[in-house]
């Protein structure tokens, strides 16, 4: 079984549409929407929910004003300026500023502070027309998205082992932070989706630096290559220099957007398009390549 993650540095490069299009091409795969902060794959996948799980988020402290003597000790210790005096003189904790370190709870002489884990995050196991999908929804302003990504990838792996899937395909989160790191850890390969713009180039260079530190094979795909042929060229030579195989280039296509509006994958929308051809070729190459086998 091969565990493959699709990443793009920044959002908006068409990564989710490409993941969806691939879903129509690949068989026997478990899908993971690892962009837990803004999960969108379900819009096209139309999942039928089978299991719902609560994912416990960070601790959030709160003050019991009946026990509090307003000594201010907690406020002095909180490094995150989350504890404030209210207009009525009492103290309160701003749940959005609280990092959940629980130090205030430990220093309070009257045990007026207690912490609870937020339960605003959920993750789901669903059936879809392409196979099982593990996805999540984070509560607004939550932290720990990296841990949630690790959780859903673990669940996907269990499912993949059980049904003897050939692949796990992760639609990764944007950025290069902890969620992106959690979506790469232990993967067998990363597919980089980029677009030829100055910012796209800048983002992909940072992302490559990150993935290289994990020593995982990378494949690149340039989307909307015809928007700027100069930058496309520069990217091609950059990938060559870095030893990253360019698996294909997709033209800019309004069809990509309209397939999304109709909640269809590109294959379902127009299976004869150039995009579908390129993606099928790409998948054939990746599926037959010698990926590092870990399992």
């Amino acid at each position: 079984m091969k565990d493959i993650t699709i990443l793009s540095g920044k959002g908006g490069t068409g990564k989710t549409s490409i993941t969806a299009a691939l879903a129509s091409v690949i068989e026997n795969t478990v899908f993971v929407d690892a962009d837990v902060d803004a999960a969108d794959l379900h819009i096209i996948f139309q999942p039928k929910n089978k299991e719902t799980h609560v994912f416990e988020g960070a601790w959030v402290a709160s003050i019991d004003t009946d026990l509090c003597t307003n000594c201010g000790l907690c406020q002095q210790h909180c490094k995150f300026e989350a504890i404030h005096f209210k207009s009525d003189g009492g103290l309160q904790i701003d749940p959005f500023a609280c990092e959940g370190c629980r130090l205030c709870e430990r220093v309070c002489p009257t045990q007026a502070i207690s912490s609870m884990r937020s339960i605003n995050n959920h993750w789901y196991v669903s059936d879809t027309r392409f196979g099982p999908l593990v996805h999540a929804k984070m509560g607004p302003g939550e932290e720990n998205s990296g841990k949630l990504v690790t959780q859903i990838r673990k669940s996907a792996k269990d499912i993949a082992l059980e049904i003897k899937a050939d692949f796990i395909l992760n639609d990764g989160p944007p950025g290069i932070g902890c969620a992106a790191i959690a979506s790469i850890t232990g993967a067998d390969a990363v597919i980089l989706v980029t677009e030829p713009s100055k910012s796209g180039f800048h983002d992909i260079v940072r992302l490559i630096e990150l993935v290289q530190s994990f020593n995982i094979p990378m494949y690149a795909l340039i989307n909307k290559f015809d928007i700027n042929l100069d930058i496309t060229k520069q990217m091609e030579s950059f990938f060559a220099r870095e030893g990253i195989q360019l698996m294909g280039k997709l033209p800019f296509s309004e069809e990509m957007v309209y397939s999304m509006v109709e909640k269809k994958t590109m294959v379902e929308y127009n299976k004869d398009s150039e995009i579908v051809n390129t993606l099928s070729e790409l998948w054939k190459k990746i599926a037959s390549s010698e990926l590092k086998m870990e399992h």
Partner: protein
Amino acid sequence: MAFKVAIASGKGGTGKTTFAVNLFSSINENWTRSVQLVDCDVEEPNDLLFFPNFSVKSEKPVEHVIPEIDTAKCTFCKKCEDYCEFNAIVMMPSMQYATVNKDLCHSCGACFVACEFDAIHETTDTIGTVTNYNIGNEMSLMEGNLRIGSPLQTILIKDLKNNLVGEHDILIYDAPPGTSCPVVETISDADFVILVTEPTPFGVYDLKLTVDLLREVNKPFGVFVNKAGLGNSEVYEFLKAENIDLLGEIPFSKEYAGLYSKGEIVRCVPLEFAKVYKEVVEYLKKLN
């Protein structure tokens, strides 16, 4: 106090950066020259790419205090490890080994309070940089840049804001994508938030999540639609039903996408687009 406007979008790639950069220049032209652009997308700061003639005015590393364990004094009582909610302290008493994983440490200070044996001392670690750029015409851009691999996005954004240089009437915060902690940190002191979206099912779904967040933290906001005409009308129906102000829209054009890709947007905004940004500026003037 400066009037602070944050630019956010649930989903990446909606054109948030383009919007922030253009709004910034439009304010500079049509309102006040005392405006500063602050790139809070510290994982992938991109605003600077639109100002090729920049020069660095000042740059400073952002350090945060992390503990260092003196194994000569440590009794391996493990109290600090127990206090650390972020699993940043690793110790193996049998081997007299104790260390701090600096990438996990949130600098909360709990372990310092925990240790009764004076075995923990302060040291610092660099989590990124804050840079102040001169971007021509006396305009200033400040940017935070997170060290690759560091999870302390939120802390760096806070540091960036604490280190803003110069007195400005207006600050434009370009927020990271999404709806999680770093976004909340960016908008926390904003007077108004502009959500940039695109009229596609993905765009609308993510917009709804962001609207939920803004209502929860009680921030006034309006919506700007980018790439208008590219998808369907769902976003307009949503804004109407929820009574949310539509601040303006910019039609999708492949030519414009080409300009954007070259980072040439500021000097090449077509006239009719410049008008749209000016209207947003007028809207903000009324709020201030």
